[in-house]
């Protein structure tokens, strides 16, 4: 497979984009439902596991430079490693399909009310397929150009929607105890932190200058957490915890309360669209390259369109209705955490033990 290289800076922007991703829209309601007015603490709680995951991935990459997770899992564990990476590939596929589904749901419920969803599925996948056909380098360049503008736009929207802010709504702090906050923090760790970070096990090995990559990625990660914190806090102070937990897209609801919000709303949608595409395109890329690595193919490009069809179909048929989806989202944490954190941890421990057992290899 042709080697492609991206710079650490581009990797950071990809990381920020994919962590914010679709969660820009979904995360406020999901956390506020559980932790009420203390939901803004949840992102900060998840920084610790996030940083641990980053350091795991970086140190695995140091031990097996130039290899993706799919490749080193088989070189660490042998045959079981193949099955483990198969599980990982399924995770990428399903994650991408869910992302796609949420994007389309968001678009149809905010701006394109009467458009058949399958059209939207098709065009989003077509766009992503085009990006992946052009390669990681091109995608990284495009998103390192787009994400700064999108972040600026997000901050402008933030300022706009804070007109009705009432900081009294943040009080009382921790009135329901610590447990709901920890629960929300765990959910937040599974979605969006873990799922976005684990995608980078398929990206980090292509970063050109690896010196200080851990610190750089961590700073990008903290920045993304900060943006999400702002979003959650905005939903609380403008709508109040009760109303925010009842609307699916509380961020849109918050803007609708401002006069002239109608003008901003489509911009907000586009803003969210760019972030979500950056996450979806990485899922797509991770899945396609992962399959290519798993089957030891020389090139991933022939897989792009079949994989796109898989994403589309899985996105359309994974749930019958919104109730099913909501039920599944409550067990998502239990399903995702072992894969997001367990597999890298397992591989890391195995790799460390392996290198201890064979000290001669170190020389």
């Amino acid at each position: 497979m042709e080697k492609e290289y991206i710079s650490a800076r581009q990797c950071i922007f990809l990381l920020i984009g994919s962590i914010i991703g679709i969660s820009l829209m979904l995360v406020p309601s999901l956390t506020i439902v559980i932790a009420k007015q203390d939901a803004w603490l949840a992102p900060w709680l998840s920084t610790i596991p996030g940083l641990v995951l980053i350091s795991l991935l970086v140190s695995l990459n140091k031990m097996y430079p130039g290899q993706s997770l799919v490749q080193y899992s088989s070189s660490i564990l042998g045959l079981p490693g193949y099955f483990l990476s198969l599980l990982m590939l399924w995770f990428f596929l399903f994650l991408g399909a869910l992302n796609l589904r949420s994007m389309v749901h968001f678009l149809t419920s905010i701006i394109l009310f009467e458009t058949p969803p399958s059209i939207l599925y098709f065009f989003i996948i077509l766009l992503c397929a085009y990006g992946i056909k052009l390669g990681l380098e091109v995608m990284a360049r495009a998103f390192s150009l787009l994400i700064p503008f999108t972040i600026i736009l997000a901050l402008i929207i933030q300022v706009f929607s804070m007109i009705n802010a009432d900081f009294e709504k943040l009080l009382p702090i921790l009135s329901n105890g610590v447990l709901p906050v920890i629960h929300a923090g765990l959910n937040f760790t599974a979605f969006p932190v873990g799922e976005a970070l684990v995608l980078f096990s398929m990206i980090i090995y292509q970063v050109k200058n690896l010196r200080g990559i851990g610190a750089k990625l961590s700073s990008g990660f903290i920045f993304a957490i900060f943006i999400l914190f702002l979003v959650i806090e905005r939903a609380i102070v403008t709508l109040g915890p009760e109303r925010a937990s009842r609307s699916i897209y509380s961020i849109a609801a918050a803007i609708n309360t401002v006069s002239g919000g109608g003008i901003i709303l489509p911009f907000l949608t586009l803003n969210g669209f760019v972030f979500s595409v950056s996450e979806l395109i990485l899922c797509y890329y991770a899945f396609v390259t992962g399959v290519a690595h798993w089957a030891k193919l020389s090139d991933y490009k022939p897989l792009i369109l079949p994989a796109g069809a898989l994403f589309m179909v899985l996105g359309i048929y994974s749930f019958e209705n919104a109730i099913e989806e909501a039920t599944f989202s409550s067990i998502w944490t239990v399903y995702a955490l072992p894969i997001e954190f367990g597999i890298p941890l397992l591989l890391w421990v195995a790799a460390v033990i392996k290198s201890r057992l064979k000290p001669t290899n170190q020389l």
Partner: protein
Amino acid sequence: MGWLKKLNYLLSSQKGHVNQSKKKTSLDLPNAYTKEELINLPIAASLQENLDWMTKLLGQNVDFVQRQFPLGSEQPLQAVLFYMDGMINPEILDRDVMRPLLAPRPKETTGSALLKLLKSGGLVSRAEIDQYNNFHDVTNLILTGDAVLFVEDCPQAFIISCKGYQMRNIPEPVVENSVRGPREAFIETLSVNISLLRKRLVTPNLMVENMKIGKISSTDVCIVYLKGIVSEDLVKEVRHRLNRIDIDVILESGYIEQLIQDSPYSPFPQMLVTERPDKVVGNLAEGRVAILTDNTPLALIVPGQFVSLLQASEDYYYKFYFPTLLRWLRYTAFLVALVLPSLYVAITNFHQEMIPTTLLISIAAARQGVPFPAYLEAMIMEVTFETLREAGIRLPAPVGQAISIVGALIIGQAAVQANIVSPLMVIVVAFTGIASFTLPQYSLGISVRMLRFPLMLSAAFLGLFGVMVGLLAILLHLCALRSFGVPYLSPLAPFNLQGLKDSLVLAPHWSRKIRPAELVQENKKFMGNNQKPKPPK
């Protein structure tokens, strides 16, 4: 009869591999000769033989002139001078060539003595005189406006340069007009264009490499660069790409552009085209390479990057605030020209909530009588506008004015009154058109005009989402583009902080110390330190 042998040899050598049609041509039409055949045809010692060959090669042309005269007063040698009428300067030919050749000399009276003098360069007072020994060079030079002298018993031809064909005066720039800056533009003559560059860069490091492209036209194409600044690989790549061109005729630099660009299918221009020598010089100093083509009043500059397509040479002549604002204006104009009609279609069809209520009411009132959907309305107006623009260029100047009056005033006004389009649509289309004229590079304007239509289509089907998908696809395409190995969107992506000083803003000259990093590897500095002006204390 040595020349018959030679002819026989030539004909026999053709039999094996050269096309058979030559033999069938009628006798009164001279055969067409390939370059290789002419190179292998040496100039003979016998004057008669050379004369026969020249007559055979060029004799049928009405502008072909031959003048026989004896060289020397005692034991004269016969000599013949050939030239193409209209390509030489007759005054120079008379004064500097014929007169010295014919005038009796006190010392050298014999023909052979004069020939010796001629060979050593002492006889003819023209500065450029050269000796050649095959017919390819001789015919080539005679056809570019030189005179050729054959002398009896001399197996060489003397080429005397006395070019004198008609050329334009140096005009003012027409397409890239400016308020401030030099008022010189390139013309069709290559040597004049090179001189326009030379007088701006007085350095031996300005290299002008020449090559001939086009099997029939044999057009002069020059690669111009500044040695010591430009990266060697870039020059090699340009040379390589030009060398692999195999085409009959080059009429304009556009042929070259299409034959050497990186992505032949991309709608975006991948090199700069300019008629301004000062712009070429500025780009040479940044480490780019210029390609000048004979008979073209335009220079190609490679590699072309997106941001440099939005720079005008005038930018650098004003104080930095103004050009910075101008650049932002151009970036905005680029976006407006690209998406404004599709935004109109998307917003009026899908997102009425984005329009302030009072405006919405007036739009609704204006559109009340219009029978077409917004997309069709936009298409009608855009196509009308493009037709008017095309007609304005093609029509003769006096009629062109009439068209613009009919188009702008009558059609615009009447179309609104007849309720075919709404007034807002006319405003949108007019503004889009004006915005596309602010782009300094005409070819970029063309790509914007083309891309507008698919974007309008996607806006008609999918609203703002469609526009966004279209724009993202265009962005991905731009990120994938490269021009001579340099990423098209650099220095924006991949990002380069120093590069932003000449793209996002235009920093003052004293703070732009570094040449573009993506072009120049060594000799990076534009200027010395501490160039910021300070008043004396």
